[in-house]
């Protein structure tokens, strides 16, 4: 799959937080959301996704709780904590600034 991109370090966390900002989700749902949302642009290993989930649980940004999936199976659900919500906001705004800065530079005319 030559047209897939590697993610910048830390970007995965933002995506996961963003996914969870819609409400509690289990890991598979997060993976599916990112895969579908990005239209297959990123090459994300599911292992890395779970590592990110657990790490953010450790940091207290998300909370894990066992629950039942849409089809009645026992699954581990993740939920944003207030700290996670704040983190998402901060990172999202930083990301916006980063993107627009890069865009600005890319669009700048050649120096005279």
């Amino acid at each position, binding site marked *: 799959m030559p047209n897939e991109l590697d993610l910048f370090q830390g970007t995965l966390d933002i995506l996961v937080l963003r996914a969870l900002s819609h409400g509690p989700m*289990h*890991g*598979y749902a997060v*993976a*599916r959301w990112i895969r579908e949302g990005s239209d297959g642009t990123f090459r994300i*290993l*599911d*292992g*890395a996704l*779970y*590592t990110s989930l*657990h*790490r953010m*649980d*450790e940091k207290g940004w998300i909370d894990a709780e066992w629950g039942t*999936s849409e089809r009645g*199976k*026992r*699954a*581990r659900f993740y*939920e944003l904590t207030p700290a996670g919500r704040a983190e998402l906001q901060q990172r999202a705004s930083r990301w916006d600034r980063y993107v627009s800065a890069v865009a600005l530079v890319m669009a700048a005319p050649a120096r005279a």
Partner: protein
Amino acid sequence: MSRPTPAWRRYLRFSGPDIASDIEEELGFHFEERIESLVASGLSLTDARAQATAEFGDLGTTRTRLQDIDVRTHRRRTSAERLMVIGDEVRLALRRLRRQPSFTAPAVLTLGLGLASIAVAFTLLQAVLLRPLPYPEAGQLVSLASPMPKLDDVWGIARHQLPYYKENVRAFEDMALYQAREVTIAGDGVFPAERMVVASVSASIFPTLRIAPALGRILRPEDNVPRRGTVVVLSHDYWTRRFGGDPQVIGKLLAVDGTSREIVGVTPAGASLPDRPVDLWMPDYIDPAAPPMNNHVRSSVARLRPGFTASDAEAQIAPLVVRMDEIFPAAYPNHWIRESGFRTSVTPLRDEVVGPAVARALWILFAAVWLVLLVAIANVANLVMVRAEGQRREIVMRTALGASRPIMLLHFVTEGLVVTLLAALFACGLASVVLGAFPALAADTLPRLSEVHFGLGGVGLILGLASVIGVGLGMLPMTHARADSNALREGSRTLTSSRARMALRNSLVVGQVAMTVVLLVGAGLLIRSGLRLRAVDDGFEPRGVVTLDVALSRAAYRSYDAAATIYRRLAEQIGAAPGVQSVGFAEALPLSGAQGCTGVMAAGSGSSPGRERCVATMHAAPGYFETMGIEVRGRAPDWADAVRHVGGVVISPALARRLWPDQDPIGQQMRCCRGGDHWDRVVGVTSEVHMTSLDAPPDEIAYFAIVPPDSAPTNNWPLDIRLVIKAPTLSAAAIQSMVRDAMTEIDATIPVSQARLMTDLVAESMARRTFTLILIIAAALMALMLSAVGLYGVIAFVVGQREREIGVRIAVGASVAQIVALVLGQSLRLVAAGIVIGLAGAGAGTRVLESLLFEVSPTDPMVLVLVAVSVALLGLAASGVPTARAVRIDPVTALRGD
């Protein structure tokens, strides 16, 4: 989501999740879902599996990584949560306790008092008894003395014993002799003449005590040989005080008792004799070549070689003592050693410095405060039980709702600990205030008291005890939780006070009362001893008498006549002053310790020298007996006798009884000291006088005339003398300045000490006994108060519990008397049981007091009866309020409640 987790739910996490299987389950779910979704999109199962695996990445590594993260997370969370839970419990406990001051205040105060008394007693014990003396390896130091069982006396050590023992006792690394005495340092324009304490020592005292010079040198063995001392070593304190710490002081001269001595060194700060601080160190005359003499007056200290004990040394000395008759025949003629039962004892120096009576009193105090603490604990335990009664429903409900036993335990233990730690805080404050006041209030009453301070040991003890008690108290309310749960399950509407609980509470009260009785009996016996002691006729009248020390220099006053002249001039000048009723002098005062002692012998008695008991001897000038209010039968020598060198001796009845058991002593002849062929005629007999303390039998005393007859040896005229003045209307300060003025006029080089009230000296002689007595009485009174509170609490509770029953009784016509009998009967039964057990305990326990008692038996019936009666009365008083309440119970209200 925002619904708070119930407190107890949080404990579930303590069991710990199974991290590995959780990860397996989570990842398993992921693969199942992914494969299913890929299959649904048209892939074969094999391909779907392969793709899902590829999408996941390295499963093994991920698994390990997740496991690491989760373990870390779990660990951090549980410890944080535990802290949080405990913090919550503490906060809740504090809030509950604040809302129930009727429980919290008595619990904290009671326990605080108990803990503080433990801390005070422990600190005293530690400072006075347990802490080593301030010398390097002080445990190796021993003190030597010469007990003589046949003469019922203990002497010191003689000079010739020093080289003899040093050479022959293998257990001794070194040995030294010392004596403390006062000397006059001449004034020099800036400093007035002053009296200083000098340690007259063998040079070996420095290596023995391991004192190194801070400046210059210490004394050397050759300093001990010359008859006239030539050198002096200053204490650090005196060096700073008089010489401003000038290092150039070495080599300067200091006039000590009229003799110039070269200052050769300074000892470090704090260096002192084992039993007292000193200003100066001077060599004693200890010449191994000098003829040995039966003169056992020096104190001695030795350092044991490592590995030897005091009893080893004593065993090694015993055969050496037996041979002293042969080795020193000049000093011990006629098998004196064997005849007198003379031996040498070796005791650890610390025991000697503190003294067995003080040690015993402190241990007894320590035991007493444990009883006080037990009474306090019983009290608080009772409060907790009473309070738990109100919490039983809560306990049962919470247990029924799923709170586990450990959770409930944590709840109560936290509460218990909060109470006891508050008490500990209060106790620390109280103990440090009390101990801080001791050195000022009670200086000189206990040895080493100035070194007392409330330190880490005391704080640690309080906190340790508080924690143990807190945990114990916390477990109390849970003891009956199980039975209660069963009761609830069986559907009973109320929880009746179980028999077991009531029995426990009752036995707590009985125990409290019993311990209080033991303490009160102990205190009662000591008080009665004190009263007996006060009733002892001290043989003199200290009221209105002031005393000062006067010291002449030997160089300036070279004979009996010279000394007597000065005393007479002083007496005449002071006696003429307005307000002065009489004035006199003697070398030693009653109750301030004898200044050495000597053997005396009656003419024609033919008593062997071994039978010579040590008798307090001194010179007394005319006016002494009159001033001190000591009655004299016969007469005492007057100034005219002094001028005519008539002599004459006045003796105490104790000495008269021994020397002339069946005859009138007046007119008899007696001989003293190295009197040669000189005999003194007894001219008077005094009332009984105690030289050392009132609890010892009256002393044998001989008062010699201020000027002896010409036939007597003339080398011993009195230079250091106590002036006594009876002037009830004058203050000590006024007398002081009057004497100083008189002295300046007569001879300005003679130093005059501070004036002191004779009544103060008497109080001081009893201070040690009084001090420990006060402490033990304080402990007993505290116990009494605490157990009264405890009894009150229990009876009040019982009345509350039986309110309905009493209401019914009143409703059916019980009289006030019947109700009173019901309530009082219950409390008096407990008190009576406590008194009986306590008296039995006291009978067994107070034997340890025996050596502290004075003319009182440990089972003194008067004390026992008084204690029993007063405890019973207190029991009645404590039940008074609850009884009054019981009588006033309104049957209607009582029956309607519930």
